[in-house]
């Protein structure tokens, strides 16, 4: 599924590049303009990393626009996204970094969170950090099959860490449970870091995490990656099989992109998409991203909207089936 997006996006990018010179002349954003980027998470997190990486290049592409990061952490991003959907003037001067799946799971799981993706204008997805299952170096589980066999034998005893209820890793473990008809003991942590730390210390059997986050420890041999939840094997982990290869149809990861409020001027949106397209094609940018182990997954415009929509559907379905179990008495 992801591959098709990437294919489609490159095609779209090529098309945009072909016709853009004319559009790009008509500058909507320009020097002296200031664009506020609402960030739903505290400084230093994954969203901030993306902002710090992308925005300098993007500012240049937009002819010297100034990006102002406005951090409004709280409620796993819902405060910033509610503001984006409900309060922000749709003039293109305020956009936000939108994280999948939290952007959707927030309101799927909580009735008090009222925004939906229909109140947003998806601009482009920029990165996707594929999911990975890691175990400590001294774990008895040598392969993913070992782990699954143990989970099958003693349902509910294999402890699997995730980054928090509603995060991508939580849903990955649920999708896998459903695909393989097993039951894990899911242990939520407050973010990816504490989750893999607990796995490395042998406090839990495995951590479902993200490749970009755990890669340094895997490379150093402190953690062992058993499986990646990607479409294809990854360049940085060539020996690690994908879940699909092993017969589990689970592809998951944590994606981050940019969205604006609904009703944002089409021209501004297109201008941003064009600029993003040029940024991700810039070899200098690609090098900088690779140095930080950031996996670029560019999905522009309507494809991003479709991606969010399909994800929303998938997670709504998953949540409906597990809701009662998670909130069991």
């Amino acid at each position: 599924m992801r591959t098709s997006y990437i294919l489609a996006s490159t095609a779209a990018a090529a098309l945009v590049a072909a016709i853009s010179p004319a559009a790009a002349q008509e500058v909507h954003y320009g020097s002296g303009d200031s664009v506020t980027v609402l960030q739903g998470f505290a400084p230093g997190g994954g969203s901030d990393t993306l902002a710090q990486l992308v925005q300098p290049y993007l500012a240049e592409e937009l002819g010297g626009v100034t990006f102002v990061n406005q951090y409004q952490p709280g409620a796993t991003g819902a405060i910033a996204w509610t503001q984006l959907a409900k309060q922000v003037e749709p003039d293109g001067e305020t956009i936000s970094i939108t994280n999948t799946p939290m952007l959707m799971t927030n309101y799927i799981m909580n009735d008090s969170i009222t925004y939906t993706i229909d109140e947003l204008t998806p601009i482009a997805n920029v990165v996707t950090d594929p999911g990975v299952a890691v175990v400590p170096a001294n774990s008895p589980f040598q392969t993913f099959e070992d782990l699954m066999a143990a989970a099958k034998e003693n349902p509910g005893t294999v402890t699997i860490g995730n980054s928090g209820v509603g995060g991508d890793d939580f849903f990955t473990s649920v999708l896998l449970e459903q695909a393989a008809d097993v039951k894990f003991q899911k242990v939520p942590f407050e973010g990816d870091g504490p989750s893999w730390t607990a796995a490395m210390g042998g406090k839990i059997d495995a951590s479902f995490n993200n490749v970009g986050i755990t890669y340094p420890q895997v490379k150093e041999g402190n953690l062992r990656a058993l499986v990646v939840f990607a479409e294809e094997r990854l360049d940085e982990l060539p020996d690690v099989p994908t879940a699909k290869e092993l017969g589990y149809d689970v592809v998951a990861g944590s994606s981050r992109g940019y969205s604006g409020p609904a009703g944002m001027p089409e021209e501004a949106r297109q201008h941003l998409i064009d600029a993003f397209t040029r940024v991700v094609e810039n070899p200098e940018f690609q090098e900088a991203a690779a140095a930080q182990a950031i996996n670029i997954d560019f999905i522009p415009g309507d494809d991003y909207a479709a991606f969010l929509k399909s994800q929303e559907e998938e997670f709504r379905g998953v949540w409906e089936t597990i809701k009662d179990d998670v909130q069991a008495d």
Partner: protein
Amino acid sequence: MGRILVAVVAIGVAFYMYGQAADYPRAARRLPQLLSIILILLATLAVVREVVRLRRARLADGAAAGPLVTLPEPGKVLIGVAFVALIFVYAWAIPVAGYLVATPLMLALPLIALRPVGWRGIGITIVAVTGVIWLIFIWFLNLPVPLYPGA
């Protein structure tokens, strides 16, 4: 007397929270319910101790025990109430009137009413405080505080 009041209010809050938590899943209500019960117990203990203490104090003083609550001077109460009200008005005024209007007023009103320093002192205080905080929080840190009315 004040302690008893606080403890009683706390018991009420704890009961309310206990009841609210009853609707939560087991993992979510475990700690809040446990803590509510402990809070109710502690508050009850505090009330009992306070009552005993007051009783003892009154017995020791004989019949001529003073009033249960000693009221502070009326002047101070007025200053206190006015100041607290001003604090809340200030918080309300920032998004409405903007930092650059609300803050000088917040500083000016008590200074002019109470005159702890001369007029020059008042002027310097207002300009210096508004300016330094603007410099650090808004100019340097880019805080999105509304600055003017309607902004």
